[in-house]
């Protein structure tokens, strides 16, 4: 087996121990991220940039009483490390007390989830260029222009505290996305994959799908309004990535969230969504594996957030849990929405009039009390009439409450990992199904293609 990218777990442990020996603080925590990132980017049917870098970042948190400060550095020669430790201590001594600081954790145990795939860790520039060339050739053959991006990461992260925590976890990730446009700029199509394992990236299918979605039939106008929509998994994932942040008990208890109860408290235990909505996180989910610990060293395990439409639980920091005399619950590190049995073909066939959406752009929050967002459709928006896709249509801006969306579910497809970040970097793993939603507010036309 090829050597893993970045420093080894043993190296990270040795650096952490060196820091603890240098430390004069009451408590100390060391977080290290060590790894490699490579990328290849295509535009105008040529490779416009490609490169890579190895980097190791060490974050040292020093604590005196309740005075806390952190220093992050990428130098780990003896002198530099000593300087960073002393600087974090000097800053901590100067800092006012943090009343919400909770002592560092002691020894924890973490589940072992294999998330490092050698196929990804050994992905060379020439292999990335060859995948890019498949898309360039496919687009050229169809008279189109390809723009693509492949983002690859491999490395190890660790957490250690002066009170006995040590955890390390190696992982890889790769995201590959392609936008193909007609030469006159009047049509655009997109496809993409994200995975921990390079073997699960389907370069040929991505080229086929993006080029087909971009095929040269003319867009026509469609009036804005409320439509039945079929959201492809990428579109669902881009919205669910936002929803993840709202699974927070403190903002709910403080009256600043959809999950706030009128008059105080939160809505844990209330049924708020369609019966078929099940949302959970699981750091061991196949090909969406994440670290089994967070940056403070808390173990992360499988956790239900929404079960059969009911709010199962919300994340609580150690401080907030202590205030309430409850167990802390770390925030999710990935998000899985349980799939159903409906196929895309069945969803289209059962739609009298509706719109199929590929992905979104520029999603921004509007009203957190109803979890509403705005954003735009992009790179594949099609009209469905009488059970068939009949034509591509102009793009739309949407203004939509995610709560209402999850209450208006008609059909659910099988779940897949998607490239959910707008910039197509490897991001928080999101595994979601295709959804058919009875009503979705496409509020105005966008002339963008």
């Amino acid at each position, binding site marked *: 087996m090829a050597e893993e990218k970045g420093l080894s777990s043993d190296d990270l442990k040795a650096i952490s121990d060196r820091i603890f020996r240098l430390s004069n603080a009451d408590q100390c925590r060391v977080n290290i991220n060590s790894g490699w990132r490579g990328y*290849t*980017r*295509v*535009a*105008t049917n*040529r*490779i*416009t*940039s*490609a*490169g*890579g*870098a*190895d*980097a*190791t970042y060490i974050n040292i948190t020093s604590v005196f009483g309740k005075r*806390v*400060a*952190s*220093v*992050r*550095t*990428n130098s780990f020669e003896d002198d530099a490390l000593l300087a960073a430790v002393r*600087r*974090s201590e000097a800053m901590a001594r*100067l*800092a*006012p007390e*943090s*009343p*919400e600081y909770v002592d560092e954790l002691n020894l924890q145990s973490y589940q072992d989830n294999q998330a490092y795939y050698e196929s990804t860790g050994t992905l060379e*520039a020439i292999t990335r*260029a060859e995948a890019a*060339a498949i898309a360039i050739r496919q687009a050229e053959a169809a008279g189109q*222009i390809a*723009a693509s*991006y492949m*983002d690859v990461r491999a490395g190890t992260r660790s957490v250690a505290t002066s009170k006995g925590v040590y955890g390390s976890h190696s992982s890889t990730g790769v995201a590959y996305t392609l936008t193909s446009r007609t030469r006159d700029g009047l049509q655009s199509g997109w496809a993409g994959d994200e995975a921990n394992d390079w073997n699960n990236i389907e370069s040929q299918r991505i080229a086929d799908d993006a080029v087909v979605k971009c095929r040269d039939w003319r867009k026509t106008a469609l009036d804005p309004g409320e439509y039945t929509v079929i959201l492809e998994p990428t579109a669902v994932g881009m919205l669910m990535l936002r929803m993840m942040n709202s699974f927070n008990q403190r903002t709910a208890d*403080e*009256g*600043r969230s959809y999950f706030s109860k009128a*008059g*105080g408290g939160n809505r844990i235990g209330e049924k708020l969504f369609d019966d078929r909505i099940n949302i959970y996180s699981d750091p061991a989910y196949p090909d969406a594996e994440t670290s089994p610990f967070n940056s403070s060293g808390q173990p992360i395990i499988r956790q239900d957030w929404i079960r059969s439409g009911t709010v199962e639980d919300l994340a609580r920091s150690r401080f907030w849990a202590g205030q309430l005399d409850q167990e802390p619950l770390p925030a999710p590190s990935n998000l899985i929405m349980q799939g159903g049995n409906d196929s895309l073909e069945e969803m289209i066939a059962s739609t009298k009039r509706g719109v199929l959406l590929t992905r979104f*752009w*520029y*999603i*921004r*929050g*509007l009203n957190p*009390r109803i979890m*509403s967002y*705005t*954003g*735009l459709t992009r790179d594949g928006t099609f009209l469905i009439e009488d059970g068939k896709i009949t034509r591509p249509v102009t793009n739309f*801006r949407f203004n939509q409450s995610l709560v209402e969306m999850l209450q208006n579910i008609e059909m659910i497809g099988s779940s897949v990992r998607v490239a959910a970040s*707008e*910039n*197509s970097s490897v991001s928080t793993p999101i595994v979601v199904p295709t959804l058919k939603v009875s009503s979705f507010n496409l509020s105005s036309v966008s*002339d*963008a293609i």
Partner: protein
Amino acid sequence: MMHLPVPQNHRGSTSMTGAPLQLPHDIPRRDFLRLSAAVVAAGILLPSTKPVAAQSMTSSERELLLHAIDVARSTGAQYADGRIIRTQFEAIGAREQMITQVQSTDSFGINVRALVGGSWGFSATQVLTRDAVAAMAREAVAIATANNEVAPSDTVLAQVDVFPDADWITPHTVDPFDVSLEDKAALLLRINEEALRVNNIRFSNSSILSVKEERLLATSEGSVIRQTLMRINPSINITAISPDGSDFQTRGAVVEPAGRGYEYIRGLELASSAEGWAEEAAMKLEAPSVEPGKWDLVLHPSNLWLTIHESIGHPTELDRALGFEANYAGTSFIYPPIDVINKLRLGPDFLQFVGNRTEFGGCATTGWDDEGVPAEIWPIIEDGLFVDYQTTREQADWISQYTGITRSHGCSYGQNWESMPFQRMPNVSMLPGENDLSEDDVIANTDRGILVEGRGSYSIDQQRYNIQFAGQVFWEIRNGRKYRMLRDVAYVGRTPEFWNALDTIGGPSTYYLGASFGDAKGQPIQVNAVSHGCPISLFRDIDIINTA
């Protein structure tokens, strides 16, 4: 020579040390000269002093960088450039009466970019030894060679003057990294204390982020340029909760980031202003919700700058217009160059926009860009007509036949040592009117309008047509006067029609510089810090929606 007005939010303290601001190379248009005369008459002049602060890059670092360039050239690159970059961040944050974050980051490394045939390769390392740097340079050449074999392309670099020993430092009086954490913490806690005095204010978050970039650039053409860039970002966000817990409203984005030292923070009077911002948050709980429909819109520069960023700044990036960002940030409605340069009307004939890497206080203000091109100022929209894009050295050639300009406008930037430079937005600013209309004068020009202050939720499509922008505070204007606060306002429209609805602009006294540290572009995504100056402006008959 020309000077823009000192922005109204930068007049607190303007004495400083540091390099002189770069002055434009070309004689600007007569409109600019008239403006300049008005400003000089008002006695507002930019300081111009010699550099005094020491820069930290050493001679051994210079040798290492030149070694990397030599290795790249000797292993097959016809052109190479490289950078040693040290970036420091310091963040301190407070929530109510406690400090929630004290974090400093120090990142140091070297990179090289190599051109083989027409293809680029890039590599970077944090190991600053001769061997590691040589391996990095060979890697960059190998990547460029592989790319050029798989997909060959042509690249022509615009001519640039050589600067073999150049220096530039952000003009400043107080290095933010020399101000103690205690001072910063005390300021934040006072701001929160003042905000929390107001009825129904339950939460107040405040923070200060300081950034220092020390950059040494070398090119195989012989330029060696040392620069120190400083930026600072004060941030305050205040939350009001209704007594029965059924509603909450926030007031944020109250002040702007800037490319300046800590004297900028001291000139803002944050603590004494916090109570006023908190009162606005509390008032929002009681304010009536807006009636949707057509309204005249008066955009305060604290809101308008982000509209400029989104609807003028981004679509005039040449790489975006030509499809280089198609897979992420999108393309542009200002396209193709042959049909739009000197032809596309984007507003009334008093509308002027410049790209400006020399703007005082600007976050994208610099001495030279990441390809050694000196900072400059140039017109982007002249008399309402689109005339030029933002460019780098390889891009200048793509449109020179339409613009007549063969040199780069100096818009290359990579966010840190790990990142390959590419075209990034300069400060793109809208010039104030020649008549020095005040804010009240502009408001007096409408009988039924809405004044918008502060940036809110912003969203625009990937060709920059469909806008939906909100703000922080909204005031109904009746019969030429501010009448009452409104809430739940967003303005929507299509960019060309929106700018052509511009009716009245304020004068130099209303000129204000808004900014963001978070201008995102590229894959891998990189962030750029950028400012936009503008006067208060009145737009006629704009569609307003209710976001409640």
